[in-house]
């Protein structure tokens, strides 16, 4: 496909859509939902096939109120639309009056506070149709890069944008790309890390399910910039819908000549294959992931050498997270200056967060870096339901920490979060209220790390197990003050001597709760009380006596 053909397809699609006076955008992340099918049947029945067009889209926001229907051009949102509402919906299209009982006022309000870059246009793209992505300007950044820009110019653009890796550590993306581009090697690889495994995090899954092509385009641009011709997406097998849509997306892109040989009729070849993870959290660690792709046991190896130098099959390998790749096409399309204008000085762009736990509106939000944590939880998340009191927010999964109410006003960027003992991580946020026991939360994350430690290095393998047992003792009311000393010592050993990031950061949830909620530990140990009444201390104590 040439750039002209792509442009023609884009206008053709746009013109076809303009034929319809009414558009219904239906969003339901439940793959079993038949609302769109029902709507189409009804259109046929009413003989309105030429006036109403139904689009199934993957993402609109406000997942809790799905299925959501947006009526265009009126820009009216309806929530929790069921089969019984279809008649009313069509009547309102005829009369021009909106249906009050279904009106969704929350979503437009929530969208006002957001800035969509990664999720942009996802509310009008059917993830199963490459034409929808192309109609929204998709693959144009790639075509322009292939025909008008040198790989060095693409590298420069990404470097200038200030984009940092969205997988957790926040390594400057441009720097990483430059390292791979400069590395010596005949064959190079581009790998997309879609092994999202933090409890309560589902950003990457939604990005892949809602708009797989944006990630493919990002990988293509990366391949062009660093000189690779083969890409892999390592995705966990627990995401069947994302896998299905990715497979379809790859096939469609191949069919249109956007993947494969001589892309854009220039001398650029690139192919993408999927590799499925088998359920190991540690395979999200880059060296373990590369080992797993190569068919070995998924255990990390010491770095250096970094994958940029010696990665997949010892070839220079660029490995980025899903959300990082999803940022590439918008940067190339709108320019690095546009991107660098969003966010803070050291954290550019936007970040997608997955809100979970005790918050009114769970689901995905995308905000510029640097917004106050309070706004994310209380404006976008709608605050804590049932008139409960906010207690803490856990960010960054098992590698992150719990941030208490007194730090709610910090700005959400890589550096501010690190200052309060947490990390940005991949973007999971679990919100907790007074019904959560912080010792129990620390125990949950330690149990997770204990189970997911690969078992290779001693500090992580034995340390997580020892810490889990100590936390179990404390939550059973059998802890002592010496146990707190032991915990702190074990945290220190693990942070300083573990082989990979999993072990080095596994103590973080524990350390941050010890720092901000030490009184809860003391209540368990000294008073034999669980302030949140989560731990069944008295039952254990009765059984003992």
């Amino acid at each position, binding site marked *: 496909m040439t750039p002209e053909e792509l442009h023609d397809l884009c206008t053709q699609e746009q013109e076809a859509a303009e034929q319809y006076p009414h558009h219904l955008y239906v969003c339901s992340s439940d793959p079993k939902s038949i609302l769109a099918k029902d709507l189409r049947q009804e259109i046929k029945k009413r003989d309105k096939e030429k006036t109403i067009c139904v689009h199934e889209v993957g993402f609109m926001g406000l997942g809790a109120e799905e299925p959501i229907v947006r009526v265009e051009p009126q820009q009216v949102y309806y929530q929790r639309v069921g089969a019984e509402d279809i008649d009313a919906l069509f009547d309102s299209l005829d009369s021009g009056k909106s249906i009050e009982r279904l009106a969704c006022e929350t979503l437009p309000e929530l969208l006002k506070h957001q800035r969509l870059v990664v999720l942009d246009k996802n509310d009008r793209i059917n993830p199963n149709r490459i034409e929808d992505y192309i109609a929204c300007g998709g693959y144009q950044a790639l075509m322009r890069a292939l025909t008008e820009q040198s790989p060095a110019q693409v590298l420069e653009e990404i470097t200038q944008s200030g984009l940092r890796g969205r997988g957790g550590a926040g390594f400057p993306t441009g720097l990483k790309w430059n390292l791979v581009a400069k590395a010596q090697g005949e064959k190079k690889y581009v790998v997309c890390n879609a092994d999202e495994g933090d409890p309560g995090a589902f950003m990457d899954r939604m990005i892949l399910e809602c708009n797989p092509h944006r990630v493919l385009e990002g990988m293509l641009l990366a391949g062009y910039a660093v000189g690779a011709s083969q890409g892999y997406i390592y995705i966990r097998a627990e995401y069947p819908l994302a896998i299905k849509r990715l497979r379809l997306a790859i096939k469609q892109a191949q069919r249109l000549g956007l993947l494969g040989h001589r892309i854009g009729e220039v001398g650029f070849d690139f192919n993408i294959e999927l590799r499925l993870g088998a359920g190991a959290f540690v395979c999200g660690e880059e060296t373990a992931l590369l080992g797993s792709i190569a068919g070995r046991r998924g255990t990390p190896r010491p770095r250096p050498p970094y994958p940029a130098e010696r990665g997949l099959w010892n070839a220079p390998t660029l490995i980025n997270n899903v959300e990082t790749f999803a940022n590439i096409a918008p940067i190339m399309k709108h320019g690095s200056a546009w991107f660098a204008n969003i966010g803070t000085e050291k954290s550019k762009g936007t970040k997608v967060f997955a809100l979970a736990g005790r918050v009114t509106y769970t689901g995905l939000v995308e905000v510029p870096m640097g917004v106050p944590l309070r706004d994310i939880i209380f404006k976008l998340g709608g605050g804590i339901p049932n008139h409960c009191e906010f207690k803490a927010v856990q960010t960054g999964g098992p590698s992150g920490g719990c941030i208490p109410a007194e730090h709610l006003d910090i700005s959400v960027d890589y550096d501010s979060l690190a200052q309060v003992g947490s990390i940005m991580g991949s973007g999971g946020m679990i919100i907790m209220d007074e019904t959560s026991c912080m010792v129990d939360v620390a125990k949950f994350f330690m149990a997770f790390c204990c189970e997911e430690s690969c078992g290779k290095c001693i500090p992580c393998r034995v340390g997580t197990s020892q810490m889990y047992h100590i936390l179990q003792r404390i939550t059973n009311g059998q802890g002592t003050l010496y146990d707190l000393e032991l915990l702190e010592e074990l945290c220190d*050993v693990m942070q300083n001597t573990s082989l990979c990031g999993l072990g080095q950061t596994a103590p973080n949830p524990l350390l941050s709760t010890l720092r901000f909620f030490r009184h809860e530990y003391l209540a368990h140990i000294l008073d034999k009380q669980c302030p949140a009444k989560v731990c069944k201390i008295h039952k254990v104590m009765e059984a003992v006596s």
Partner: protein
Amino acid sequence: MNATSVRIVTLKIDDRELSAREDRTILEVARENQLDIPTLCHLDGLSSSGACRLCLVEITGIRRLLPACVTTVGEGMEVYTNTPRIQHYRKLILELLFSERNHVCSVCVSNGQCELQELARKLGVDHVHYPYLMPELPVDASNPRFVVDHNRCILCGRCTRACDEIEGAHTWDMRGRGIETRVITDFSDPWGASSTCTGCGKCVHVCPTGALSEKGRSVAEMVKHKHFMPYLTLMRKEQS
């Protein structure tokens, strides 16, 4: 590799000025110069995995501790192999290892010949202040000549590497994760039923503890010979 393409660098290890080829590891250079760095998973002749974390060293200008067995030397590097900070961590790591499984020396075939025991003595680990986890693990004596006692295994991975890299059989591997990790033969079959095991016994002789031993040995009788490993590696290289 072209011999002239390797540079010689100068570095300091424990304040001693040394020179070495730039492709050597800190561990190799230190040991060549009679500076000992403790290791359990590393063995001359096998690839290094950096798993046991006992060879961690401090390098001036680098905040993280790095494993000497896989970190190559660099020009002007200043390495410290035995600072109080490192000694502290090494002792704790050994203690964690002792707390993990059953390492009661008095009833072990390798008593007196054991690398774990010897290291504990050298580093002054005289007690373990973590609770013993000590799960009950099986002993597989199905092989006619050898025994694997999982209770003594420290998961250093030497047996798996020797079997794969030297013998080429890849009978040994690991299964499970975290604290549940075990060494296995074939697809976790009894050793005696293994169809790939050649019975060469290299795994037994590279094992640092009493986890792998020859049958018929009683307490303290299992003497291991590991010094043939570098020789075998060299021979393999010359043949290929």
